[in-house]
């Protein structure tokens, strides 16, 4: 299952809920304000580092760049919409709104 998140983890519990339900190995796609989760040096960094051990984590690069996020957590794959589509080809989508 591919989990998609479009809200900042500083604003909503969507990422938290996603991590509770996601099975080890499930990919996570961060887009829109969801990409704030990849910012290094924040209070959710420990949770993200833990998540990165269990899940491939992707973030839409256009959203990351648009938000001035330059310090990206190590291990996050920055990707484009083609890559997003590629993940949807392989997985059922579970959106966390």
């Amino acid at each position, binding site marked *: *299952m591919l989990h998609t998140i479009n809200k900042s983890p500083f604003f909503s*519990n969507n990422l938290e*809920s996603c991590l*509770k*339900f*996601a*099975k080890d190995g499930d990919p996570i796609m961060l887009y829109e304000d969801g990409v704030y989760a990849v910012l290094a040096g924040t209070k959710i960094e420990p949770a993200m580092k833990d998540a990165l051990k269990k899940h491939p984590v992707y973030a839409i690069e256009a959203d990351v760049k648009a938000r001035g996020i330059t310090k990206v957590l190590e291990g996050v794959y920055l990707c484009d919409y083609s890559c997003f589509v590629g993940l949807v080809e392989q997985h*059922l*989508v*579970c*959106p*966390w*709104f």
Partner: protein
Amino acid sequence: MAEKEKTKIMFVMRKAAHGSIYAYEGLEAILIMGAFEQEISVVFIDDGVFVLKKEQDTKPLGVKEFSKTFKTLEDYDITNIYADRESLEQRGLTADDLIIPVKVMEAGEIAKIMEVQHVLLPF
């Protein structure tokens, strides 16, 4: 997918009842889509569990008391209705506080049911 195989569609309800329209329009979607005899299921997670809270009195607010409409789901043979145990517990609720019977489950069990769906619809 084989022609006669029913499509598994799960509604994932994570938002409370009256602060936004998602829960209500989600319910409308469940009722219409439920009439086409596919395999519909509904899961209540996070604030979604508040949608089923008993004793809602919407008269003072002047909006429809649609929590009662969930009771009609069994007429549509929609009986696969789940709630996340932890979401209930964190909100001080138990299954007895809800207007319809639900299967209370752990997140891991719910995730397994999600995985076998054809479509997950968030409301």
